[in-house]
């Protein structure tokens, strides 16, 4: 999950917790406030009723109605009653406010009721003033549903705003990841231009990557220079020796035994020269000194290699067959490197094959990539050794004294450089198969 989505989700989650808890508390607070207001209203009415009694304004009503009086409005929302009391209780005279379910004309109506006893004309009375709770409860329900709706809208809005904001916030970071890490396959293709940001941490990250890349680039340059120097310093003396030996061998006046020794020396020198050239070749590929700017037909390259190597096949009487369902054009590639890679694989298939053996080359499309398999009927490799065959100077076949164990390291280096996936399957004494998978990015 992307960091900006995570940040937006965490934000939304924390806001949701706050808003939900507020949503739960709000109706309770509102309800308490509403009760307080009702109670205050009831108290005011009680004071007004008692003051009317003091001024004998209610005499007529009380006496006319047999010492008791009761009245409510048509919606049964408010009522007042004055009724005589027989006994004097310890609670008499104290104001009591409570919720009471009242039966009014066969209808139970919940009320907030204030009751208080008083003495009038030597008679004990109980005054009750009530106010209906129905409106208040309905208001509470409406408030709750309104709050839930508002909450949902607020949470959704918050997620969208956070996503948008974190996208703007993370833009420089994403740019650093893309330009400075993802798009960089080699120090030479690195862009040193700083990414514009006002966030201190991102600016620090950007400059740290730049500094690191400068160091890596320097190391690559040093290696490049080293390769060039080694080439010159080692190959020049070899060149002198080789030409001197050639002149001695060609000189008819030199004794034959000396010339024979010179041929031996030439052989050793050629071996040394080939090892140095191969190691430099591998280093140069690893140092990205080869271009990847050609579109190569894999089938044509393999056909060229097979033509070039034909005599070696004939010599061992090896049959080579090719099966192609289609050709594949490898983009951003290097024909010369591909040639060398296939040359070494097919040459190995010949070298380690049995006389009268077979080599089968297949090319086919699989999903969105192209696979080339090269199978021989050769001596095979032990399962434990398969991984090591690509290591430099490792030889797993009988010592023939003619190879130096650098053929497959070349294959490995080229395959890595050109992003070709390689796999080897082998059965000792039966066969070896090289599987190469090509993809166009």
């Amino acid at each position: 999950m992307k960091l900006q989505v995570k940040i937006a989700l965490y934000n939304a989650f924390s806001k949701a917790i706050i808003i939900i808890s507020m949503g739960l508390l709000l109706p309770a607070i509102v309800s308490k406030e509403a009760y307080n207001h009702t109670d205050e209203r009831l108290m005011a009415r009680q004071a007004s009723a008692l003051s009317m009694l003091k001024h004998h304004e209610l005499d007529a009503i009380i006496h006319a109605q047999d010492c008791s009086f009761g009245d409510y409005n048509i919606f049964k929302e408010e009522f007042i009653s004055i009724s005589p009391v027989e006994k004097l209780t310890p609670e008499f005279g104290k104001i009591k406010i409570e919720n009471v379910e009242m039966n009014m004309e066969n209808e139970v109506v919940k009320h907030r009721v204030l009751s208080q006893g008083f003495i009038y004309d030597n008679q004990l009375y109980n005054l009750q003033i009530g106010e209906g709770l129905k409106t208040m409860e309905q208001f509470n329900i409406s408030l709750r549903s309104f709050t839930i709706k508002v909450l949902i809208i607020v949470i959704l809005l918050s997620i969208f705003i956070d996503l948008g904001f974190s996208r703007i916030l993370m833009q420089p970071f994403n740019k650093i990841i893309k330009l400075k890490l993802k798009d960089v396959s080699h120090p030479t293709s690195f862009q040193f231009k700083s990414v514009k940001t006002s966030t201190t941490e991102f600016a620090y990250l950007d400059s740290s990557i730049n500094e690191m890349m400068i160091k890596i680039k320097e190391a690559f340059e040093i290696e490049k220079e080293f390769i060039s120097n080694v080439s010159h310093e080692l190959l020049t003396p070899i060149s002198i020796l080789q030409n001197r030996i050639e002149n001695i061998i060609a000189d008819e006046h030199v004794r034959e035994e000396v010339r024979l020794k010179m041929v031996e020396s030439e052989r050793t020198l050629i071996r040394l020269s080939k090892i140095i050239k191969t190691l430099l070749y591998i280093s140069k590929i690893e140092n990205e000194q080869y271009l990847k700017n050609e579109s190569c037909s894999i089938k044509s390259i393999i056909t060229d290699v097979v033509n070039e190597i034909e005599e070696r096949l004939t010599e061992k009487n090896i049959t080579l067959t090719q099966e192609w369902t289609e050709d594949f054009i490898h983009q951003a590639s290097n024909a010369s490197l591909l040639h060398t890679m296939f040359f070494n694989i097919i040459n190995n298939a010949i070298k380690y094959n049995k006389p009268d053996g077979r080599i089968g080359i297949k090319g086919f499309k699989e999903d969105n990539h192209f696979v080339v398999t090269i199978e021989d009927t050769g001596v095979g490799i032990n399962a434990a050794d398969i991984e090591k065959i690509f290591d430099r100077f490792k030889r797993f076949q009988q010592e023939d004294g003619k190879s130096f164990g650098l053929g497959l390291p070349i294959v490995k280096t080229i395959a890595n450089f050109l992003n070709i996936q390689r796999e080897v399957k082998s059965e000792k004494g039966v066969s070896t198969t090289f599987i190469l998978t090509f993809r166009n990015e």
Partner: protein
Amino acid sequence: MNVLVVEDEKGLSHEMEIFLNKQGYQCDVAFNGKSASEKVFINAYDFVLLDLGLPDMDGLEVLKEAKKAGKESAFIILTARGATDDKIKGLDLGADDYLAKPFSLPELQSRMQAIVRRKHGLKTNTMKIKDFDLDILNRMVRCGKKDINLTKKEFDLLHYMALHKNRVLTRNQLTEHIWGDILEDDYESNYIDVHVKNLRKKLSAFAPVDFIETVRGIGYRINI
């Protein structure tokens, strides 16, 4: 033909001089870029064999100056630097060929001969070896009027030995010419012997091939 060898390694220039003199070239040597530039200006060389890693300047500068001055000498770049950039740059600047060190002297000579043929458009694109005619342009071998079917490598081998007639060529020199710069895991193989065997077999069906001599322990020689 006049040849200027521009090479600061005296050991190497000396060996090249011995070889080229033996092949009938008039050889001159320059050990640094400055003296090379002077010599190229004063003399009309047929060939300049140019090392790139000179002590005082880049060999490519010598080439650039000479081309600017309209010198028609053929340039062959010799370098141990091995950078592909140098090769491309050199050829772009008008060099005629490029040889990576270490190279074999017969290989150098065959490159020089190829340049002569190319530059002067020599009509004699055929070589005669006893009863056989080599058509270099079409890469064909004929015996009288009969075509002989040789593989690419067999033709290259015969042509190379014919170019260096009467000189013994080692198996390594022949291998280097035929397989070029391909880096493979074999530093010594008997493929050359197989090719020579096949070549003798194919040619002997038309005429005697005793001119191809096996020099014991060393290599092969064509005696004409």
